[in-house]
């Protein structure tokens, strides 16, 4: 295996900037790796070989011309979740209904990556319209977890997390509506960050649930995630919900945290996130992580957030409600799939047939739930009540952060489950996001950092660290200190049985 593909983004960027290695070589090494293993992993829906090599060449040319690197990540390859619009490159959101759609514009995240000289290798697989926790809901087949190809890589951003674990890319972008960055990070032994809502522009991110969706960085190390965070973050006038404030100093925090000293940091353990439904090995890993934080000088206290118990049901009203409206535009009129247009049928019939054929069962389920929850006569009982729960959860966070700097919990109650295991049990599937959803409802930042392997099945476990809005640097500091003390996990992934 080429050492280039096992390098961190920070290392690659330094080598490219120092002209020890060309960006084209780095891109080619990753494209080769994708060609080698993606038949088994299925992390990518579209590999943009030509675009990636052209972008890499531009970085090399600029450096050769004596220009300074466009960013601290110039020339580093990246895997982009297929939910971001990419001009000239297909964007499907893992759905048949968008098969063949080539956006005429770039998402703000896409544009910022290009401007930073980041080399976009391709678009990664995902649960259809980001609805799911296993990537099994992709219309283009499931992505497999490089730690065990019979298991899920998490979801909805399973393609992004798997591409990191399989060394197909050192960096990836995900989106997190209820845990779709953090849960895949946890089950693949990688780092995933959901920024503060409004911290990363949603312009060009195909909406699932507008008030919850948030793009964020995925990487194999905390520092790499921080470097990527600073490239994609910051105010965007094209997104009204974008926060007009500087990106929190997350790179500095990651570097500071790597010194391993957490003296004076108050860490709250959320008591709601344990007990029934939590795998014993996950809880043991979490306890060990808390002990490690204490060893690093952090003060540990227990914090109760009673409203978190209602987060999951509230989420499954708010997210489907918004989705039912957001997904209404997929009607066969202007782009994407069109079914039944044989000049005998009305526009209404074509819309209906297209949506019937184009959406998968989970998407339809959520459209139905959301349509119902917003119906007159039911709105107050469902959508209205869910919004009240949301306010209570925000208050629980505020109360907690009045006394602690960060909160911690397991990222997800179990390690990666087997493909198919929960496919017919939506409730069991939804529970994968039990610990991650509160931060989405409150709009606060949270991340998952690997906390080793579960002692019972040898699979990765994630530690979730949560912070108040725009205080991402707090969680990056804690994560970096923890990572420095316990070590990364990604290097222990078994060699892929490529012949599969």
């Amino acid at each position: 295996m080429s050492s280039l593909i096992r390098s961190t983004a920070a290392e690659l960027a330094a080598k490219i900037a120092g002209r020890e290695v060309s960006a084209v070589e780095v891109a080619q090494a990753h494209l080769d790796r994708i060609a080698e293993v993606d038949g088994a992993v299925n992390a990518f829906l579209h590999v943009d070989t030509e675009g990636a090599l052209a972008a890499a060449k531009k970085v090399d040319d600029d450096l050769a011309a004596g220009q300074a690197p466009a960013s601290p990540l110039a020339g580093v390859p990246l895997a982009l979740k297929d939910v971001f619009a990419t001009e000239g490159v297909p964007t499907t959101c893992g759905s048949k209904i968008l098969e063949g759609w080539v956006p005429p514009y770039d998402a703000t995240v896409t544009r910022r990556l290009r401007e930073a000289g980041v080399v976009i290798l391709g678009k990664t697989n995902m649960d259809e319209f980001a609805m799911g926790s296993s990537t099994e809901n992709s219309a283009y087949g499931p992505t497999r977890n490089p730690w065990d190809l019979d298991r899920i890589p998490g979801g909805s951003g399973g393609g992004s997390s798997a591409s990191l674990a399989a060394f197909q890319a050192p960096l990836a972008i995900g989106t997190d509506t209820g845990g779709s960055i953090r849960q895949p990070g946890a089950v693949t032994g990688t780092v995933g960050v959901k920024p503060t809502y409004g911290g990363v522009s949603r312009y060009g991110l195909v909406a699932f649930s507008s008030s919850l969706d948030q793009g964020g960085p995925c990487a194999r190390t905390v520092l790499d995630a921080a470097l990527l965070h600073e490239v994609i973050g910051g105010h965007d006038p094209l997104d009204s919900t974008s926060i007009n404030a500087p990106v929190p100093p997350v790179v500095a925090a990651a570097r500071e945290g790597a010194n391993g000293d957490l003296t004076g940091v108050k860490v709250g353990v959320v008591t709601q996130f344990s007990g029934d439904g939590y795998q014993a090995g996950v809880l043991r890993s979490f306890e060990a992580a808390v002990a490690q934080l204490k060893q690093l000088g952090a003060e540990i206290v227990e914090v109760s957030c009673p409203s978190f118990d209602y987060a999951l049901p509230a989420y499954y009203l708010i997210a489907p409600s918004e989705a039912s409206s957001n997904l209404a535009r997929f009607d066969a009129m202007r782009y994407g799939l069109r079914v039944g247009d044989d000049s005998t049928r009305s526009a209404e019939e074509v819309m209906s047939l297209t949506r019937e054929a184009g959406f998968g069962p989970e998407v339809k389920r959520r459209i139905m739930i959301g349509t119902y929850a917003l119906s007159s006569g039911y709105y107050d009982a469902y959508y209205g009540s869910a919004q009240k729960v949301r306010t209570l959860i925000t208050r629980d966070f505020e109360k907690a952060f009045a006394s602690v700097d960060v909160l911690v919990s397991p990222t997800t109650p179990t390690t990666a489950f087997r493909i198919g295991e929960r496919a017919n049990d939506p409730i069991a599937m939804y529970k994968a996001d039990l610990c991650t959803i509160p931060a989405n409802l409150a709009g606060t930042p949270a991340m998952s950092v690997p906390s080793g392997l579960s002692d019972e099945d040898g699979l990765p476990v994630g530690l979730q660290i949560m912070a108040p809005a725009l205080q991402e640097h707090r969680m990056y500091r804690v994560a970096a200190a923890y990572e420095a003390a316990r070590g990364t996990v990604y290097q222990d992934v078994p060699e892929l049985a490529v012949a599969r």
Partner: protein
Amino acid sequence: MTSVDELMDYAEVIERFDPVLGLEVHVELHTNTKMFCGCANLFGGEPNTHVCPTCLGLPGSLPVVNGKAVESAIRIGLALNCEIAEWCRFARKNYFYPDMPKNFQTSQYDEPIAFNGWLDVTLDDGEVVRVEIERAHMEEDTGKSLHVGGATGRIHGAEHSLLDYNRAGVPLIEIVTKPIAGTGERAPEVARAYVTALRDLLKALDVSDVRMDQGSLRCDANVSLMPKGTTEFGTRTETKNVNSLRSVERAVRFEMTRQAAVLAAGGKVVQETRHFDESTGSTSSGRTKETAEDYRYFPEPDLVPIAPSREWVEELRGTLPELPWERRKRIQQEWSLTDAELRDLVNAGAVDLVAATVDAGATPAEARSWWVAYLTKEANARGVELGELGITPAQIARVVALVNSGELTNKLAREVVTGVLAGEGEPEAVVEARGLKVVSDDSALEKAVDEALAAQPDVAAKIRDGKVAAAGAIVGAVMKATKGQADAKKVRDLIIARCS
């Protein structure tokens, strides 16, 4: 279905029922850009040229509120004596229709920007009716469908439809009245007078083109009847496609006579949308609203709330122009008009035109005599608005000047105006081309007089005998010979001089 509606005689309608009106007026703002994106806000244009990802509703696109549109909405609200919300939101109105790119309209629902206002409306005889305003809210316009094939130009029966999204996302303000009751037989007139007053107000505010023919001002008329002596509102119908002030009055009147006939026959008025037909003056059934459409409104999560500061609102109050009725009062004093003269001026829709003509040099009396007395007849004969006749106040002022200088007689002046209306160019060009200059050349006139006297020697003899009244016959002959281009008084003087 082309059954002819039974209608009740209007006098009988009034004897037996009390009408209740509700008027919804949509105004397209003439801001430079659209409501939620930077596309040009222009009427017409090659189809689908003023479009971008946002107003096309492409996946991933996001709206950003046009600040100028909010400003216009607040100014309209203030001019309508409304309260201005301290905090309000947009909402999504969800329904499927091909000319609506997102299949939801971004509108306002229970939190309008302006509410609880009133507008005093002056009827033709000077009576003032106060119309209470329920709300004025912001929303976006839809695209336009052109239904090809089929007899009606409507979607039913069409072979296919063409969609133009240039209008999609154009800023709209919807102004809704509270129920207008107690106007009895004058209800149709009140409806017209209200829309007229609103149009004048919006024009004075310079927020819209207010062209009913181009759809920048659109009125939906809700009409219901309740039997005399009762107080419970009857079932209402909503009539759309009312494209002129006159149509507003006709549509209301038609609905009153139609509904009365239905009720008198023991039937029930169906709650439905009806379509006004300009050519027949009747309404026909459109969508039935028996199963009330459920728009599943919910707060638009892609936009942040709007919270206009009180300082800003007061600043905008300071920018309100002289309101049309205040201006009328001032004009009445300045021009010394009687109430009846002012009313004629206003009813003719000629205030602005007369004022501009006065500004261009005519006296108020001269200007009024042209616009109110003469041109109003011309406009009525052609079925157009006074301002659309094709002659400008400056042109009228020049014609007046030509009369005052003796170059035109009043009769010739009317011919000049006729020429201008026929598109023959500026007044001077018409005079030239039609050879309309007053014949003031004495030798030419003397020759004509001599010829006339020679042709009627008996009449000439009578004049010589001192029977001056007989000169009339010779004047007539001279005028005929000079095609009316001579000054009759001058001709008469010449005849008498020749015969003495």
